[in-house]
């Protein structure tokens, strides 16, 4: 049984049909990378898995709980599914420590001391121990994004969703965020990430999924998908990405 099981999901915004019967299974400890043109629905898919968007049709199961059913307590689902966004979205009025402890304290009912101890431990693991008292606007983009990841991890999620977490970063700062994801993979975290970092995808992904026409058009191990794509659209997309990298 898969940890995340997306089947036949449809999602439209007005007349724009973004997801059209999308299927995706993610196993425990698996790292799945989503690639696809901008606007192909990667963010929408991740937001649906987290219950931030409701689906129009189809089913999403996380750990065999149907996220899309009306009866489910979405707040309970969300605390098991961590998500990190492109724009960090830290709470600017709170210190790093408060950002990280808010969820555990208010949602899991952990007391302040215990939450802070756990937060400091996590921050230290990702080289952020001396940033605990700082406010987000004092941090670099890379530090902010690492705090956002720690904030999600503090909820002890079973799966982490990363939505282009390095796209808003100065190229020099991308590495430190990717290091965090590498570390999570080595610990066995189940990960679904949308990214344009093809090199990184090749390195960490167990499976790469190419999204087009509101579906997973093609998927497979990174070697296979990058070196021997079968679909014309996949080939065209990869060629465009390669050309973009050369011109950049």
């Amino acid at each position, binding site marked *: 049984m898969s940890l995340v099981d997306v089947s036949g999901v449809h999602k439209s915004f007005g007349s724009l049909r973004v997801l059209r019967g999308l299927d995706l299974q993610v196993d425990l400890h698996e790292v799945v990378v989503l690639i696809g043109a901008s606007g192909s629905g990667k963010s929408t898919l991740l*937001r649906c898995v987290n219950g931030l968007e409701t689906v129009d049709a189809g089913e999403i199961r996380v750990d065999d709980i149907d996220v899309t059913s009306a009866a489910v307590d979405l707040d309970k689902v*969300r605390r098991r599914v961590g998500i990190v966004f492109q724009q960090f979205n830290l709470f600017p009025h709170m210190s790093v420590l408060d950002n990280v402890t808010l969820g555990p304290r*208010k*949602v*899991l009912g952990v007391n302040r001391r215990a939450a802070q101890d756990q937060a400091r431990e996590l921050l230290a693991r990702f080289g952020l121990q001396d940033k605990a008292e700082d406010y987000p606007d004092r941090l670099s983009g890379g530090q902010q994004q690492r705090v956002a990841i720690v904030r*999600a991890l503090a909820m002890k999620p079973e799966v982490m969703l990363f939505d282009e977490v390095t796209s808003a970063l100065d190229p020099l700062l991308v590495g430190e965020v990717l290091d965090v994801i590498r570390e999570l993979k080595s610990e066995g975290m189940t990960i679904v990430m949308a990214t344009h970092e093809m090199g990184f995808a090749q390195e960490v992904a167990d499976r790469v999924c190419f999204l087009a026409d509101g579906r997973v058009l093609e998927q497979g191990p990174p070697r296979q998908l990058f070196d021997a794509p079968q679909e014309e659209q996949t080939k065209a997309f990869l060629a465009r990405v390669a050309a973009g990298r050369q011109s950049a």
Partner: protein
Amino acid sequence: MTTPAEAPLEAPELPYVDPVRRARARSKSRRDALVASVSTVLVFAVLGYLVTASPGWPKVQETFFNWDEAVAAWPTLIKAFVLNIKIFLVAEFFILILALLVALGRGLRAPAALPVRIICTAYVDFFRGVPTILVILLLGFGVPALQLQGLTNSPVVWGTVALILSYTAYVAEVYRAGIESIHPSQRAAARSLGLSSMQTTRYVVLPQAVRRVTPPLLNDFIALQKETALVSLLGPIEVLRAAQISASSNFNYTAYVVAALMFVAITLPLTRFTDWLQKRDARRRMAGAM
């Protein structure tokens, strides 16, 4: 205490400006200060001369700026002014709470909350449209006329209630603007941690929204402080009414001037504080934009 083993203190890095430029900048700022003081003194001296040299000045001074009258009226006026301050404080307390509830009520999106939303919207539409002075007259004279059992006829109470009703509508709109200015991604981030909608509002949206609207909120406080004088229409002896009595008893208007100065004295610190906050926020936004 320092030990030689300690690492040497790093000298704080000062911005480097070459000495010639620094001297030039210093002499320019000295010159600017001098020009500013001289021109200010000059303008006020000329204005003062024009006013006091005018033929009507002695008469005006006698009726509006009479020192002895001011001293005589002071004790009564200051006692009356305490009532204004009390009205202001009580009204402000309720306004801050009620306006927040109204703003939150207008923001409810659940289908079951539709009636709440309609009521809150209608309330704001109505009281923002009606002049405060009319609300005061309607409540102050209207409610006692109903002769309802168990309801007070106190004009101070009804005047204060009228101010609360009127200003709650304005302040609710200020809150709402603040709440709507918080980017939806903040909400999404909080919800993704498993916080409920209410927790998200409480811990993430409201603290940021209130910070953002503090200057306009303070502006409304300043306006409210002045409008406590409108309660005089209902008869209680607050400062405007006290000044009126003083003026009509001896045909001297100095008491009005004293009352005016009292309002200025109490609103001035708030005004300056608001300016300061606004400047600070503007600076922060600039810094954030870079």
